[in-house]
């Protein structure tokens, strides 16, 4: 077993320190069980296993893992008994991400994840070189990405991290930590809260603590007021906790975020404890999505992600370019990423009265049903006034949603980009370069057909795999599809000609 034959190399030696820690974390539940069992039975020395097993496993992993870059391929070989070699042609390499969890950072190591954009998201198919020195990892990344590019001969950088004006590196965005104030307005906080509350309740149940509020325990005689006060305080505390958690999460993932562009690729660095460096080739960036969920929109903020072809679906998160930030900043970066500011700020073409009617019908229908149920419940069941309250609340909320959805709905075709916006609570503006459109789907139900509407979907290889323009008038949909990809749809028109010019002006 010679480490260097045929160019096969081991990972960095310092992984001998990291691997046991990783194995320990992986085996923690089993080891804890073992410890408890061992103590209960009264056998001594079991506890030692908790140290020995991870060290042995980690060492074996180090000794059995090798990689090489040769013959135009990156190869990773691992496994002791069932040996597995993963080979990826260098010209198929689409992304090289460097990730450094805290332990790695202490030792100056990074994990190199080599992405080929395969549709397979199985864990064993991912090519991770877990544990290379930072400098070696950067050299490797430069070599892999350069080889994957057409040979127009721009120089590789060993140090892509620090933007340097001399080398045509352009810094597009530097995170302002003050933007973390937008974090509570996204859904992340709620998810965190649910996790914390869920975990807390589970723990409480396990420990036999009963969470029950007894009205008698509260001081004072005016019990209803005291009860409401408790609820109010509870709400405020919850809000504060959620906000703090989401701000912390925001800073943890986005600390020191720098988005820069060097010839041929976008480069994103971020993270407080675990640092991540993502490189996206220009020709893989198919577009951008400006997310404007209601909370952020009311605060004048938005976040932006890139539509990237060849990112594995399991890593959709790495396409995030701008975390919640002022809307103008997010849109500005979006303009930079797609190469022209127009798709991000152009006024959109609305979908007309039929689409508006459909928005209202779809929002009010369920609300009216809910309201009717509420009224019936109040009349027949012992629910008191709450049924009517539900009815009174449901209708205006539905009307607000319908109004906002109508306002959001729109599309455009500008500067070679298809633009589609829809939604209210989770409104987003999707921008897709027309050369990345690889097919069209026109979907209409019987109801839509009677209204002359169709849901047009442009399929693509990146992001959510599709950009959808909901409830657009049929003729506008066909014109949009034909203008975006000339000649594809027109051959299937009932009258095989170019579509007549629209009555109103176009961009």
């Amino acid at each position, binding site marked *: 077993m010679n480490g260097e034959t045929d160019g096969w190399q081991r990972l960095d030696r310092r992984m001998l320190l990291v691997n046991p820690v990783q194995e320990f974390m992986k085996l923690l539940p089993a080891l804890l069980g073992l410890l408890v069992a061992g103590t209960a039975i009264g056998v001594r020395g079991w506890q030692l296993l908790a140290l020995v097993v991870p060290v042995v496993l980690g060492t074996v992993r180090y000794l059995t893992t090798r990689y090489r870059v040769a013959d135009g391929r990156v190869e990773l070989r691992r496994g002791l008994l069932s040996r597995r070699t993963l080979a990826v042609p260098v*010209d*198929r390499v689409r992304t090289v991400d460097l990730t450094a969890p805290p332990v790695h950072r202490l030792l100056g190591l990074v994990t190199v994840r080599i992405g*080929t*954009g*395969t*549709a397979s998201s199985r864990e064993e198919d991912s090519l991770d070189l877990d544990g290379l020195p930072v400098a070696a990892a950067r050299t490797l990344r430069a070599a892999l990405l350069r080889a994957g590019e057409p040979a127009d001969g721009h120089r590789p950088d060993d140090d892509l991290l620090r933007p340097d004006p001399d080398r045509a590196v352009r810094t597009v965005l530097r995170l302002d930590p003050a933007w973390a104030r937008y974090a509570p307005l996204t859904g992340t906080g709620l998810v965190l809260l649910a996790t914390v509350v869920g975990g807390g309740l589970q723990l409480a149940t396990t420990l036999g603590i009963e969470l029950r509020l007894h009205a008698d325990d509260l001081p004072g005689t005016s019990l209803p007021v005291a009860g409401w006060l408790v609820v109010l305080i509870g709400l405020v505390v919850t809000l504060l906790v959620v906000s703090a958690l989401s701000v912390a999460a925001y800073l943890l993932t986005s600390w020191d975020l720098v988005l820069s562009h060097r010839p041929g690729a976008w480069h994103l660095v971020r993270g407080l404890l675990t640092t991540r460096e993502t490189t996206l*080739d220009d*020709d*893989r960036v*198919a577009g951008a999505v400006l997310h404007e969920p209601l909370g952020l929109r009311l605060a004048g903020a938005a976040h932006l992600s890139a539509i990237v*072809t*060849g990112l594995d*679906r399991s890593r959709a998160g790495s396409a995030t370019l701008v975390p919640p930030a002022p809307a103008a900043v997010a849109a500005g970066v979006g303009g930079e990423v797609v190469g022209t500011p127009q798709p991000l700020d152009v006024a959109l073409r609305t979908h007309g009265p*039929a689409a508006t009617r459909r928005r209202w019908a779809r929002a009010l229908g369920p609300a009216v049903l809910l309201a009717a149920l509420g009224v019936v419940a109040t009349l027949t069941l012992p629910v008191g006034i709450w049924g009517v309250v539900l009815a009174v609340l449901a209708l205006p909320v539905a009307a607000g949603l319908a109004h906002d959805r109508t306002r959001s709905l729109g599309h455009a075709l500008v500067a070679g980009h298809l633009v589609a916006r829809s939604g209210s609570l989770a409104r987003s503006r999707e921008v897709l370069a027309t*050369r*990345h459109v*690889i*097919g*069209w*789907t*026109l*979907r*209409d*139900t*019987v109801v839509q*057909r*009677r*209204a*002359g509407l169709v849901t047009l*979907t442009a*399929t*693509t*290889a*990146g992001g*959510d*795999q*599709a950009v959808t323009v909901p409830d657009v*008038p*049929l*003729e506008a949909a*066909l014109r949009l599809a034909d203008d975006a*990809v000339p*000649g*594809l*749809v027109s*051959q*299937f*028109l*009932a*009258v095989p000609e170019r*579509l*007549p010019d629209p009555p109103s002006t176009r961009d």
Partner: protein
Amino acid sequence: MGTATSDLREPHERVCPRARLMWWCTHAIGATVLLAVLVVGVVLTDTLRWWLVPPVAVVLAAYAVAVPQWRYLVHRWEVTATAVYTQTGWWARERRIAPISRVQTVDLEQGAAARVFGLATVTVTTASAAGPLAIPGLDLDVARALVDELTLRADATGPAPGPAPRAAGDDAT
């Protein structure tokens, strides 16, 4: 409404008439199973009543008879020199168009029912996970010929179909 002066025409080819027969059979089997579950429920529990059975049976029968016919009227397909065009569905109609230059794989698949009726499904995929074009209910020979034709055309016009093609970022010509 529906005053649009332009619309897509329907694809030229219908699916095999035996597909309708297959759908009738599979729908009938599905409806029978549902009805059997209901009858068992009526026998075993007190909450379900006998008078429920006739209306449910009528609805299921109508579904099993009407939907395959509806489907058969909607399902169509066509392949031109530059594109594949399919129309599927019944209540919700879905028309899909994909340029041949972006076709990555062409699959031929035969389910158990399809084998009984000598039918096959041809699925054309592009680099997008959202855009496979499936043509169910093709005569097996027609399906085989279609797969050959599509494979040839895709080879001639587009980037080579393969396990991990770089077609996604390429420009269509």
